[in-house]
């Protein structure tokens, strides 16, 4: 049943310190809402458990991208459109704007935020495999201060994260060291736009003299959390890509996924497609069909 707006409280303190002090007064009592592309959908369906919401949309402290010599810090309140339009993000972290372009249509890209995608913690979050592949770090902030945590260990289980009740994600940090890597990203869904992934992939590799010196493969919608395929990476790293290796990587990747049957797809299909995407990535890599 549709929710009644009078049953909900919504405040907009307007600055990050004011939001943090509100969160600290009653840890877990307030649900932050940014662009609303997830929260408002739950609300409309009458399925939003929270009754008290605090707006963090457009907080200036969260809506900026800082380019430092060794890393960039993407404010958690930056939208998918912000990511797609940012020059350094597009040039050095291309997997991220590609993933952003998959997410909803333009209207949702104008509202949905990178921090929201992370904290909403859906296994199908489109931008999450890219963050895994780049080994992002998150800056978490509360009234007590900030801490940095590696993104690869941020998701604990289905929709469970290491975020403390009175904390917010302030920024996503990406090290600027991927200029020699080749990237590949692909989403498989029922249609090209406005669809939630059945499987999505973000992968990076660095080749030297035909040998895979480093490789990172991350997938969405194939496990309770966005997944790094460490075993697949291990068997490919240090090798030359040839057909037997591609077949082994395909099988290893399929076995390494932990998908489920649900409304959008089946476990069997997801595992098979996951394996195929890895094989496709390696095939393109060896054929030189990926632009840096």
């Amino acid at each position, binding site marked *: 049943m549709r929710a009644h707006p009078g049953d909900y409280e919504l405040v*907009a303190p307007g600055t990050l310190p004011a939001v943090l002090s509100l969160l600290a007064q009653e840890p877990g009592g307030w649900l932050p809402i940014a662009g609303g592309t997830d929260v*408002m959908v739950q609300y409309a369906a009458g399925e939003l458990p929270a009754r008290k*919401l605090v707006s963090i949309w457009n907080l200036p402290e969260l809506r900026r991208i800082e380019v430092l010599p060794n890393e960039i810090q993407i404010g958690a309140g930056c939208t998918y459109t912000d990511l797609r339009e940012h020059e350094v993000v597009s040039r050095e972290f291309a997997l991220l704007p590609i993933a952003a372009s998959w997410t*909803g*249509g333009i*209207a949702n890209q104008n509202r949905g935020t990178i921090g929201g995608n992370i904290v909403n913690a859906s296994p199908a979050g489109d931008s999450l495999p890219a963050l895994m592949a780049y080994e992002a770090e998150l800056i978490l902030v509360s009234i007590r201060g900030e801490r940095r945590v590696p993104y690869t260990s941020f998701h604990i289980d289905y929709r469970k994260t290491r975020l403390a009740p009175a904390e917010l994600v302030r920024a996503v940090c990406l090290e600027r060291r991927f200029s020699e890597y080749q990237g590949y990203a692909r989403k498989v869904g029922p249609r090209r*736009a406005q669809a939630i992934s059945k499987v999505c992939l973000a992968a990076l590799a660095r080749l030297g003299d035909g040998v895979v010196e480093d490789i990172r493969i991350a997938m969405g919608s194939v496990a309770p959390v966005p997944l790094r395929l460490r075993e697949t990476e291990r068997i490919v790293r240090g090798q030359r890509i040839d057909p037997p290796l591609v077949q082994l990587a395909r099988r290893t990747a399929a076995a390494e996924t932990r998908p489920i049957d649900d409304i959008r797809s089946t476990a069997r299909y997801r595992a098979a497609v996951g394996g195929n995407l890895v094989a496709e990535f390696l095939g393109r890599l060896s054929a030189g069909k990926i632009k840096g």
Partner: protein
Amino acid sequence: MSDCPQGRSKCEMALRVNGERIVVRAYPMDRLLDVLRGELGLTGTKEGCGEGECGACSVLLDGTLVNSCLIPVLQAQDAEIRTIEGLRSDSRFQELQEAFLELGAAQCGICTPGMLLAAFHLLTKKPQPTIEEIREGLAGNLCRCTGYQQIVEAVAEAAWRGTAV
């Protein structure tokens, strides 16, 4: 932004809609869509899915295309809101509307205001889009009548006429 002093009760919020400053009494969590239609009588903005999938409720917020069904009205307080009604006097918009009419891009009409808003937003950012860019720009707007082809052609035609001027 200011807050309602009593939390869950209705309060007065000042909005700027189509260039006019308007004070509405609403709950902070009222959807912008409902305030536009119910309080302000701006029924050109349609409700389709109510969950951000169909684009029928598209409006411009500070020039940015958004789904008004996903926006709590409190978050729209400091923004310049433009609805389909507010675009009537814009000559570039009139050109787009003409192209929709001539090329059969409107049938039942439910998606049409949202389509026009999305197309207007696209042409503002990219005056000469490719067909692929038009398809991407309209990907968040669903139409169950036309099959989309006429809509894409109308936007391409409007873009072409815009550059011909």
